[in-house]
């Protein structure tokens, strides 16, 4: 009887801890940024670094997420075809769809300053894991990237929640 009780308690514990550890992404983020980038109150627009993805639903969804994260930081999104923004944010993403896991996933984003006419911030996230589902993998990576934006130079290993 005591054994059964112990087993039930163990399974409940496993269920709880399992839920908390599931869907975590181990990622390495590399950032190169100029110091003192002013972002609050500045205008921006988000575009595809890989033009072939510009109309894809995945890109549009991630773009909306970037806009949301940047707006949260006090930046103002404008339509770059009508008004010149201070910053152009260009990003791209890819996953390895080979037959063997772990799959490699990459996210790259650059921030181009239209006043200075050069890139002021670059960020690259490399991650490996069992999932290669673009729709599940990249939203938490985008969130992570723009939460730490504009991080200064360096590498950081992070476990990102999905």
């Amino acid at each position, binding site marked *: 009887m005591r054994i059964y009780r112990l087993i039930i308690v163990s399974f409940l514990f496993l269920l709880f801890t399992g839920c908390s550890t*599931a869907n975590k992404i181990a990622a390495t983020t590399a950032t190169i940024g100029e110091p003192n980038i002013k972002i609050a109150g500045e205008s921006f627009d988000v575009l595809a670094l890989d033009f072939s993805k510009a109309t894809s639903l995945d890109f549009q969804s991630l773009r909306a997420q970037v806009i949301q994260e940047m707006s949260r930081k006090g930046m103002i999104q404008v339509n770059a*075809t009508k*008004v010149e923004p201070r910053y152009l944010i260009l990003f791209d993403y890819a996953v390895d*769809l080979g037959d063997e896991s772990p799959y490699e996933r990459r996210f790259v984003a650059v921030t181009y300053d239209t006043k200075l*006419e050069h890139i002021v911030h670059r960020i690259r996230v490399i991650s490996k894991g*069992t999932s290669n589902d673009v729709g599940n993998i990249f939203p938490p990576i985008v969130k992570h990237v723009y939460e730490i934006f504009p991080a200064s130079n360096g590498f950081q290993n992070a476990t990102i929640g999905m």
Partner: protein
Amino acid sequence: MKRSIFFALITFLIVIAIQSDYVFAQGSFGTGFQIGSQIGAQALSSSANEKRAQAEESARRQQLIRQYGRPALERIDALEKDADRWAAEMALSLKEMREKSKSRNQVAQ
């Protein structure tokens, strides 16, 4: 008592390992689990359903590979290397677009 604690501990470790994407990423545990789950899945599914699912999965994979797969990984590297040029070109083309639109509006007025 000792045996049940041991059993609970082993089960705990296995569940944590298979649910953790990070552990999967390290290789061995993930591979073992995958082989096990593949055998289980094959035993459960009927052959007709299996074939259809395989064909669908293969088509989906081909579509994804074209869009996001290994060529996309290579492409992202190339794009990243040339990001300065792409960003500058993008800014320039947007500027031209704005100017054209401005002159069109002026002509219309």
